[in-house]
């Protein structure tokens, strides 16, 4: 029996954790419940590494292993089973899902300390891990959809974890509903793929993709793209992600930075043969949607005050980069950026969680400052993450972003320009965030009261306090205790992720063919659909230098504005309000939208119900009308009998005589 036969353990362990914690989680309590959950995901990671090594040991053509557990839906022409497809793409995804996931589970053990619903949190986290792993390991569209919906549901449960606050509950609903719009696309794609190819299993539809008519392929690819837009928060369905920051920070890190939002990227990469068969306008559309989203999100991020919202918009922006890469055929670059993004974005989120934890639930950056004095480890790791995302070599983000910009340039210089400007904004707002939070003067005061427990017990209470205290703008925040560094359960993952953010670029260094490890690794999955560009080395170097210069300029600008105070900050309200996008949606839905819904409801009530009731009342009225003939008079009845008899008489006599 080879290692790969154990691949079912990868999703099974988190599932076991979920079930166990659901039953005895409350009894296990802190911190056992959390540690159990972490152990499960850690175990998954171990199995994943083993599977990866096993796959690595095989020849390139053999790196595809399918394990079928059982027949799920044997329904005539449709045969769907529960099975796992282990190939380079899915194993790569599993590696960083379980790896980063385990680190985040560990972090949550410390972060959620003191929360009354401690074990419930880990129940949801393990369920999420299970769903996500089913999503990437599934060998057919339906299993992926199962995982897709599962992560959507878990996302809802986790965002509204503190649901007693109505705003947080609404955020969860918003996420779920927006995702649902995208899910429609996914479902249509499943139907279309079954109709066109007779199967939903990846191996069959991908090998049969060559025989698809262009319109069918376009339909499938486009509807899956719609699903990806919903799940990966692209324009126009990105509105849920910033609001999703209402959930606890580990949730934001795991779901909304590293894993769930990347499932859209995974999906499109998986179906790359179908995209290749689709109409010529689809790929550029994907690219432009991604570029546009990246740009718009970056513009909004530069004027946000909440430490997590900046990161949320940043996530949307970076996801836009990944879609830009897919649209230009640079699947490897997209996956590369997905991996590095998982590292540094999770790091940044966890770091911000640490800051919030240390600042006793304060999230407004304008009330922070000079925190590196109080939280050195957090600060150091956060700075690593900042440099990675800003695109400063040799950190991971530089290499992956540069790949994307290179392919964008080869496809269309306009795309490259948008990407470059976005990179400028990215570096700018991230630097702004770092300078506001960790450098500069302290914009808060500390009461030198008796030392409290200082470990941020009952963060939930503090959150309510902070909300209540958040009335005055730019008032100086008064804390009871000084900000403090987080416990090791929280700082350890930060350090680990920082390390990965530093060396992550090594996955696919562009220098020679030998260093392009990821590209070779993913070759069986992508085949010929990976774009090959013919750009002179000089151009490549030139582009890289331009990117570095742009990043430097942005950092310098942020330094000048926020640290040196040499210029006034430019944070127009329109950007702070997100181009009024949310508000316009509410207005539309409240106005024309509501009229539409009312019209449909009225139609249903009047026409459809009316038709049904109308039939009934018609019958009743006819009956009542006919009732009048029942007079009860014997003589009338006698007359009718006589009349009938006359008619019969006439008939028979006519027969006889004529």
């Amino acid at each position: 029996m080879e290692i790969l036969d154990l691949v079912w353990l990868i999703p099974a362990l988190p599932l076991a954790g979920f079930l166990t914690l659901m039953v005895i989680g409350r009894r296990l309590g802190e911190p056992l419940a959390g540690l159990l959950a972490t152990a499960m995901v850690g175990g998954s990671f171990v199995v994943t590494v083993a599977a990866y090594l096993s796959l690595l040991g095989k020849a390139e053509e053999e790196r595809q292993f399918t394990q079928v557990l059982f027949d799920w839906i044997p329904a005539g022409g449709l045969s769907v089973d529960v099975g796992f497809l282990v190939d380079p793409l899915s194993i790569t995804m599993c590696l960083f899902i379980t790896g980063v996931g385990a680190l985040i589970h560990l972090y949550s053990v410390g972060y959620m300390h003191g929360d009354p619903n401690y074990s419930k949190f880990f129940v949801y986290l393990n369920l999420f891990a299970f769903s996500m792993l089913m999503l990437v390991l599934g060998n057919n569209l339906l299993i992926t959809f199962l995982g897709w919906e599962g992560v959507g549901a878990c996302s809802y449960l986790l965002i509204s974890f503190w649901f007693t606050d109505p705003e947080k509950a609404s955020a969860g609903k918003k996420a779920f509903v927006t995702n649902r719009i995208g899910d429609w696309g996914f479902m249509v794609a499943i139907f279309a793929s079954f109709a066109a190819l007779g199967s939903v299993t990846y191996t069959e539809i991908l090998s049969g993709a060559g025989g698809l008519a262009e319109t069918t392929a376009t339909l499938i690819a486009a509807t899956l793209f719609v699903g990806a837009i919903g799940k990966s928060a692209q324009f126009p369905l990105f509105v849920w992600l910033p609001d999703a920051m209402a959930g606890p920070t580990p949730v934001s890190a795991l779901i909304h930075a590293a894993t769930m939002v990347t499932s859209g990227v995974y999906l499109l990469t998986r179906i790359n043969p179908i995209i290749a068969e689709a109409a010529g306008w689809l790929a550029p559309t994907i690219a432009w949607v991604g570029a546009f989203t990246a740009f718009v999100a970056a513009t909004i991020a530069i004027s946000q005050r909440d430490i997590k919202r900046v990161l949320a918009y940043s996530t949307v922006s970076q996801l836009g980069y990944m879609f830009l890469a897919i649209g230009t055929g640079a699947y490897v670059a997209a996956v590369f950026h997905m991996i590095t993004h998982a590292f540094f974005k999770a790091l940044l989120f966890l770091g911000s969680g640490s800051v919030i934890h240390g600042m006793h639930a304060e999230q407004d950056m304008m009330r922070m400052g000079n925190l590196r004095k109080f939280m050195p480890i957090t600060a150091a790791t956060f700075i690593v993450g900042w440099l990675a995302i800003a695109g400063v070599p040799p950190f991971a983000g530089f290499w992956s972003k540069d790949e994307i910009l290179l392919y964008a340039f080869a496809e269309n210089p306009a795309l490259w320009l948008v990407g470059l400007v976005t990179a400028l904004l990215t570096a700018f707002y991230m630097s702004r965030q770092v300078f506001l939070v960790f450098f500069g003067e302290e914009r808060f005061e500390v009461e030198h009261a008796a030392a409290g427990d200082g470990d941020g017990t009952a963060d939930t209470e503090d959150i309510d306090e902070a909300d209540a205290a958040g009335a005055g703008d730019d008032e100086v925040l008064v804390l009871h205790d000084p900000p403090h560094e987080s416990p090791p359960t929280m700082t350890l993952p930060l350090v680990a992720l920082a390390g990965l953010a530093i060396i992550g670029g090594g996955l696919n260094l562009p220098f020679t063919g030998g260093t392009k490890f990821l590209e070779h690794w993913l070759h069986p999955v992508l085949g010929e659909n990976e774009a090959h560009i013919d750009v002179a080395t000089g151009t490549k170097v030139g582009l890289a230098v331009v990117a570095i210069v742009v990043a430097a300029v942005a950092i310098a600008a942020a330094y000048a504005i926020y640290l040196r105070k040499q210029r006034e900050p430019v944070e127009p309200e329109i950007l702070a309000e997100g181009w009024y996008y949310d508000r316009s949606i509410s207005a539309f839905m409240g106005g024309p939208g509501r009229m539409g819904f009312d019209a449909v409801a009225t139609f249903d009530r009047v026409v459809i119900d009316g038709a049904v009731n109308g039939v009934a009342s018609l019958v009743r009225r006819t009956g009542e009308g006919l009732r009048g003939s029942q007079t009860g008079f014997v003589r009338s009845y006698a007359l009718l009998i006589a009349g009938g008899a006359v008619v019969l008489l006439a008939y028979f006599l006519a027969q006889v005589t004529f």
Partner: protein
Amino acid sequence: MVAAVEPAWYLILAAMIFAIGAVGLLVRRNPLVMFMCVELMLNAVTLTFVTFSRMLDDIGGQAVVVFVLVVAAAEVVVGLGIIVAILRKRPSATADDLALLKG
């Protein structure tokens, strides 16, 4: 003198009696008179049968008349019993008042 009696005349006479009986049944409201009209119709029928029996030179028609007579008698007995039972309660009831079948 007058013409010889054609058998057809008997038939026409019977038809007339029958028609008068039918009209009477539909027009009168007193239950007893309605019943008498029914007897009229039965008589017309017996007359027809006897005429046919003579025309066709066959005894069958007269046999039928015997049975019609028996049935008519039985029917009158029961029918009058019913009328008595009803009209005992309200002697001035007419056929129009017995409208329990009114829906």
